């Protein structure tokens, strides 16, 4: 190689160069082809290319010596070698040798730096991407990258495209460290900073576009959010000043799209990025604050915002420190959603004794527990109704709310007399005073009323679901209550006490979380798993206590009214339009009701109705709704007896099967694809089961 470079000063023949290049780079392949099994170890690619890398370093050394000596050399052959090796996929091996050596060599020697820059600049365009990507991934830090690549991005169009567009917007497989390297590199030189701002604008544009939020996978959105946060951390004051207005507009648009989404992860990403942007542009004055769950992901994202200044002097510092939280006081005040500790009762142990009388030598005991007695709650249901509707006495109201559920359960006969009235009151009950767990108390009371007198209360609730002038929260309350009561009714009595653990605990978010659907999906998944592995060796579980399924007689009243009016929009409530969040919850509710209806008489009719419902909505754009539809199909396949499925619903099943196949291949959402695959497997298993059963 050295001779070729020396010769370069004079014109060498391009064909010779080409041939040489080919041979050098493809040597391992040729040798192994010839020698087949007897290839010596040195020609294995993982050994050969590092060796080649070593050779390249030696050549570069000689070049640098000769340059110092005043002689001119051409480095382009080496660049070609490097480029070809990288594009053949051997970046890792060759750069594993090159990058550390070059890092050391370029530390203080500017001739070496220039050599390095020339090296990468001379790589032909068609191989530039591979080389640049390799360097970006391998470089231990942004400043090292800056030394190695120099102003390549400014000089070379292809490099610029790769760095600013391809890595950031079109790929999302890279780690956070790579992003840090890249964006840090862009920020280190004044020529490149213009690119940094341009990059930030494009990232924000993507972040804020509603179609991107809807259709791109969550991993990509997270990647873009990380990139935005890192860019923000690099920006200096004057730059922020200049693009403040743009930042503000894009933030507002972006926040809107993100909060509109059904997936909690996307909402949280939007909230974190918006908070960060707002804190950057309004350093004094009120900043945007959201409430969301803090967990590792959120903390990691926030830590990206604070950059430790690059330490140019001390080279031995491991660059991992950059990603950890800075010791310098962060400019943000992070608001967390942690629950405040319940204040312990203030107990004064000291007794204020009167002076001991000489005659009276009786020592008092500790009486600090002697406090006022609480207000008694009413003991009759009708009294409860009175208190909840009319009373001004807040203590009594509080006590009533707390005891209502147990009263309802203890007096089923009395409850049945006033069940619809009680349901109406509970649906409209607002929080008068600050009770802990008010939402849960109200919900449990509603569930108790519904389980005690299912038919009229279910009629009332389902009719109210489609009525005017209810808030989204109330409509979703109705759905939750129906599900919980259905769950309670369908389980044998001995299980009733333990089942409350699965009840809702909605977190206080801007929009309520969909935790219950995850819970249920897990249960359905487990059931699918247990079904697909069944052998004919008898029961593996212990017999559970059995009792009559009370859900049997009322399941129709729960299910069919919910399905009836979904396509009729009202002035304040449009399921197929804006209120797709409620539609998603409705679909999940129907899936759960279907699941619980196993072994009931109405299950076949329900299955048919559900399948038609799913068919009408199968192309809905919201991924949460689609996931719900797929869970509906799972529930239906699990609950409706196989014979009925295959007899009454054959054509629909076939249509559904082809739709499921489509979803598996083409749906952008990973969860949808997985659910569709499970459904297909279920169907296969059902068919197999029927075939194996002797008719």
């Amino acid at each position: 190689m050295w001779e070729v470079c020396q010769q370069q000063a004079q014109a060498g023949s391009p064909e010779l160069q080409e041939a040489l290049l080919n041979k050098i780079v493809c040597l391992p392949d040729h040798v192994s082809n010839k020698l087949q099994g007897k290839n010596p170890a040195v020609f294995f690619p993982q050994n050969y290319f590092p060796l080649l890398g070593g050779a390249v370093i030696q050549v570069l050394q000689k070049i640098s010596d000769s340059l110092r000596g005043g002689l001119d050399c051409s480095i382009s052959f080496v660049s070609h070698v490097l480029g070809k090796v990288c594009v053949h996929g051997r970046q890792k091996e060759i750069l594993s040798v090159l990058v550390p050596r070059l890092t050391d060599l370029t530390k203080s020697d500017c001739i070496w730096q220039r050599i390095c820059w020339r090296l990468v600049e001379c790589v032909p365009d068609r191989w530039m991407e591979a080389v640049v990507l390799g360097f970006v991934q391998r470089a231990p830090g942004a400043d090292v990258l800056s030394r190695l690549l120099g102003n390549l991005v400014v000089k070379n169009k292809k490099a610029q495209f790769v760095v600013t567009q391809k890595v950031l917007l079109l790929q999302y497989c890279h780690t956070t460290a790579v992003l840090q390297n890249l964006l840090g590199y862009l920020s280190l030189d004044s020529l490149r900073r213009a690119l940094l701002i341009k990059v930030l604008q494009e990232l924000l544009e993507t972040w804020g576009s509603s179609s991107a939020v809807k259709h791109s996978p969550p991993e990509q959105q997270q990647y873009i959010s990380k990139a935005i946060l890192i860019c923000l951390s690099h920006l200096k004051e004057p730059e922020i000043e200049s693009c403040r207005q743009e930042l503000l507009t894009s933030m507002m648009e972006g926040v809107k799209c993100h909060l509109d989404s059904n997936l909690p992860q996307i909402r949280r990403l939007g909230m974190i990025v918006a908070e960060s942007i707002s804190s950057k542009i309004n350093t004094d004055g009120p900043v945007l604050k959201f409430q969301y769950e803090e967990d590792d992901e959120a903390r990691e994202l926030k830590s990206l915002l604070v950059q430790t200044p690059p330490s140019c002097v001390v080279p031995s510092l491991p660059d991992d420190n950059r990603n950890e939280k800075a010791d310098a006081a962060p400019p943000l005040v992070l608001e967390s959603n942690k629950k405040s500790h319940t204040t312990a009762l203030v107990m004064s142990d000291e007794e204020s004794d009167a002076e001991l009388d000489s005659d009276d030598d009786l020592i008092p005991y500790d009486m600090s527990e002697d406090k006022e007695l609480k207000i008694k709650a009413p003991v009759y249901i009708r009294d409860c109704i009175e208190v909840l509707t009319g009373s001004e006495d807040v203590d009594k109201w509080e006590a009533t709310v707390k005891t209502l559920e147990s009263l309802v359960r203890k007096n089923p006969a009395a409850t049945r007399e006033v069940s619809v009235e009680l349901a109406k009151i509970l649906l409209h009950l607002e929080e008068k005073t600050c009770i802990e767990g008010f939402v849960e108390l109200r919900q449990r009371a509603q569930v108790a009323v519904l389980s005690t007198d299912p038919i009229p209360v279910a009629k009332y609730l389902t009719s109210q679901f489609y009525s005017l002038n209810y808030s989204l929260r109330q409509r979703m309350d109705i759905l939750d209550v129906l599900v919980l009561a259905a769950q309670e009714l369908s389980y044998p009595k001995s299980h009733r006490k333990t089942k409350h653990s699965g009840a809702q605990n909605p977190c206080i978010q801007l929009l309520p979380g969909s935790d219950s659907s995850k819970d249920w999906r897990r249960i359905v998944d487990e059931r699918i798993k247990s079904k697909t592995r069944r052998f004919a060796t008898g029961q593996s579980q212990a017999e559970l206590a059995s009792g009559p399924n009370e859900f049997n007689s009322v399941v129709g009243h729960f299910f069919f009214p919910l399905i009836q009016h979904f396509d009729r929009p009202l002035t304040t409530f449009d399921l197929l339009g804006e209120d797709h969040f409620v539609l998603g919850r409705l679909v999940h509710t129907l899936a759960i009701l279907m699941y619980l209806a196993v072994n009931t008489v109405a299950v076949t009719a329900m299955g048919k109705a559900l399948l038609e419902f799913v068919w009408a909505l199968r192309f809905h754009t919201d991924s949460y709704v689609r996931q719900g539809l797929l869970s509906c199909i799972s529930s239906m396949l699990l609950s409706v007896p196989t014979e009925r499925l295959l007899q009454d619903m054959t054509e629909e099943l076939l249509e559904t099967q082809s739709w499921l196949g489509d979803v598996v291949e083409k749906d952008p959402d990973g969860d949808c694809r997985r659910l569709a695959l499970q459904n297909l497997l279920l169907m296969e298993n059902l068919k197999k089961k029927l075939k194996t059963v002797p008719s």
Partner: protein
Amino acid sequence: MALPPPDPQFVLRGTSAAVHTLHFSCGGQEPGVPTLFSGSENGFIHVWNLKTHRVDTELDGHGRKSVYCVETIGSKNRLLSQGRDQRICLWDLAEGRTSVTDSVFTENVGFCRCSLLKVAEGRWLVAMAAKALEEVQVLELPSKTSVCTLKPEVGAKLGMPMCLKLWQLNCGSQPLLLAGYEDGSVVLWNLSMGKVLSQLVCHQEPVMSLDFDSEKAKGISGSSEKVLSIWSLNEQQNLQVYKTHKLVNAGIADITIRPDKKILATAGWDHRIRIFGWKKLKPLAVLDYHTATVHCVSFSDHKNPSERLLAAGSKDHRISIWSIYTQT
């Protein structure tokens, strides 16, 4: 650093109904088992053996109507009980018998507990609320002859008598009656003349219970409000309020002073028993064990001071026995 209040020494269970009245009989001359009598809402009187903590005998004499007063007449074999069947029954319990020897038909539908006083050997006086609304009747036992009827004057508007206490200064003197009424006043009656000696308004609400210390001529009354009232009797037989004490929660069902006059106990509607020093009404302890309102408290009459007990009966069907301040 004050100690936490003690736990009950033991708890008697098995009445299966709210306990309304308690009476100890432990200090008798004859050798025997220390006994506690309890009257419950289901009409039974239980005789508890305090050594085995079990019911020895169950007496059914009031037709399943609530028994709200139980007292021994002289010895533990003679018992008096008062129930909501408008009767006062006298029992003979010697040698294992459980028979009602005599009964008095009071025709009174109220809740006022009768009061018993021994005036001479073999003679007792019993004061009880009479048929007419505001009257108190005093009978002599065992002859059941009426001694007097105490009628407040017209227009006094005292209401029903709520609690009674017969006392005499010493064994030969005149017996007197303290009665607490529905309007919150305590009245001192002279029995021989049947006249009011003194009247004092202690409470705004009905007087639920009272007790009197004849040596110090001081008494205490509790009502359905939050105040305990201590009053004294001066030489002219006039009642005066001595002091009041405010409680944390409203409602006192029963008050009793220990026979050695050192401490007193109150039974509260807030499920708590409070102990006070009698000298200055210093709060000494709050015993929080029961889960429903405490209906009655009673001190035992053990001869040996260290064995003394306090019993409390509550609506939660339990009787708690405490050993508290027994060293003095």
